[in-house]
């Protein structure tokens, strides 16, 4: 069935049809209001522009995430605008052999990738990084302090690079160029979740190949000289046995981490700071009592969800919220909408850092693909707030209107956060 015939089968007066017509998947402005207006009546609707069934309620989104038998993750990172053959050819010529190992795989393939990744991406390992992460956060604070400026952009001077540098710690590389990594990742995000023109795609492909060569070279180095880091742990898990993990899969996991670990966290940090600084009383509350920070982090993840939507595909005929979907249907789970669902979160449209069940959000997904970096991301966000509230307690947002959000299907984060430090 084509996307227009699906929509034409839903009566025009029906709220489900209207929701599908009103929905703008790439426009962040007004998105939460849109979901709040449809959620009570429309648990699921069809969005023709992206050929996806959009799920708006927490309960249904959770059920899909937990049911990997019937819902495949194979489309989770599929490009919205298909890559042209010319680009595929170019990437082949560049020996770009990245393959899906984890986030877009189903068991049993997913299980092997995840098991290997978990030997390093786990709470015990992450705990060892607390001091390094704090030192890193302080280095950004010092730079801001020493700049002598009254007004700084917190994205530019802190949150843009910080999670990438933490990712480098996991890779065992302190001296890498974080800006370069960020550029690579920004482009890759646009390649998958954005709407690029042909020229932009081809340009991005060149960077993609660079990015891959970088990940491959890193793994090659660790083969010769292993350390206590993610690539070495994957190689150790592999133990030279292709039936456990191939070398190309190791490279692909490292390549994948370079994206998963920082873009999301940069966005989450920006969103969290934006919500807190928009509300000087709330900011003041965490300045005065830092024990409120961990729950403020959860409320930020819930209320200003940074991975706004995530995809699945029906492996068999399924029913979601009473609607029958044929096998092969694409599903977009709105994590943003789920995280404000009134059924779980009383007054869900209100940002409340004291909310007792804030952590029951699904900003990190749920089920077998549940974010492996969640404990680390939480630590990064907590330390960010602890250090900023200590260093610049009187900081205030400036020029709020100048802040905008990059138009992608799955990610949301402010492009800048100008603040007056009021030292």
């Amino acid at each position, binding site marked *: 069935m084509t996307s227009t015939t699906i929509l034409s089968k839903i009566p025009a007066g029906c709220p489900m049809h209207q929701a599908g017509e009103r929905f703008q998947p790439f426009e962040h402005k007004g998105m939460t209001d849109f979901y709040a207006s449809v959620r009570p009546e429309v648990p699921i609707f069809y969005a023709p522009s992206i050929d996806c069934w959009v799920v708006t309620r927490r309960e249904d989104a959770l059920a899909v995430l937990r049911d990997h038998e019937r819902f495949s993750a194979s489309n989770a990172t599929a490009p919205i605008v298909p890559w042209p053959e010319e680009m595929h050819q170019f990437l082949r010529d560049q020996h770009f052999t990245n393959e899906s190992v984890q986030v877009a795989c189903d068991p049993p393939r997913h299980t092997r990738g995840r098991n290997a990744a*978990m030997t390093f*991406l786990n709470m015990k390992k992450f705990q060892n990084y607390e001091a390094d992460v704090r030192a890193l956060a302080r280095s950004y604070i010092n730079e801001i302090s020493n700049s002598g400026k009254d007004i700084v952009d917190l994205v530019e001077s802190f949150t843009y690079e910080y999670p990438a540098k933490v990712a480098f710690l996991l890779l065992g590389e302190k001296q890498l160029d974080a800006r370069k990594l960020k550029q690579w990742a920004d482009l890759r995000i646009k390649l998958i979740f954005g709407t690029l023109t042909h020229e932009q795609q081809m340009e991005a492909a060149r960077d993609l190949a660079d990015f891959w060569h970088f990940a491959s070279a890193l793994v090659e180095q660790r083969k010769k000289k292993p350390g206590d880091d993610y690539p070495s742990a994957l190689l150790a898990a592999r133990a030279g046995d292709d039936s456990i993990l191939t070398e190309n899969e190791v490279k692909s996991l490292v390549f994948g981490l370079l994206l998963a670990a920082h873009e999301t966290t940069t966005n989450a940090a920006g969103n969290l700071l934006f919500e807190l600084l928009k509300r000087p009383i709330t900011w003041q509350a965490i300045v005065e009592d830092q024990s409120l920070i961990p729950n403020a982090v959860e409320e930020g993840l819930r209320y200003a969800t940074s991975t706004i939507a995530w995809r699945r595909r029906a492996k068999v005929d399924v029913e979601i919220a009473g609607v029958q979907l044929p096998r092969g249907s694409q599903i977009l789970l709105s994590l943003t909408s789920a995280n404000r669902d009134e059924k779980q979160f009383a007054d869900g449209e209100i940002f409340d850092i004291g909310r007792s069940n804030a952590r029951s959000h699904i900003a990190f997904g749920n089920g077998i693909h*549940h974010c492996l970096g969640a404990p680390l991301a939480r630590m990064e966000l907590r330390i960010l707030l602890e250090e900023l509230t200590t260093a610049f307690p009187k900081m205030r947002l400036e020029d709020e209107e100048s802040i905008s959000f990059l138009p992608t299907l799955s990610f949301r984060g402010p492009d800048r956060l100008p603040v007056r430090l009021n030292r």
Partner: protein
Amino acid sequence: MPKLTFISSSGDRHEIAASNGASVMECAVEHGIEGIVAECGGSMSCGTCHIYLDQEAYERLGIPATAENDLLDFVNAPRRPTSRLSCQIKVDEHLDGAVISVPQSQY
């Protein structure tokens, strides 16, 4: 089908007939036992399926694997000698009659 008794943090008891081969976490979720969050769906990364077993059942199962033991250090409610991650326990006849206490919080 082995019988399992869950005791909630407020003392309510629920007896369920568990399916052989499933994990204790899966049976608990299937029967709507409250307090077992299991964010990671049993992939042993979240530590939100923590339970306390009765001493006898704990001993029958033998010691948990290293990775589970490591993660048990990070659970939210106090770790006790018979703490386990319920997603790592397969239901079989050995488990019949086990009494499982659900901690007050998972995070």
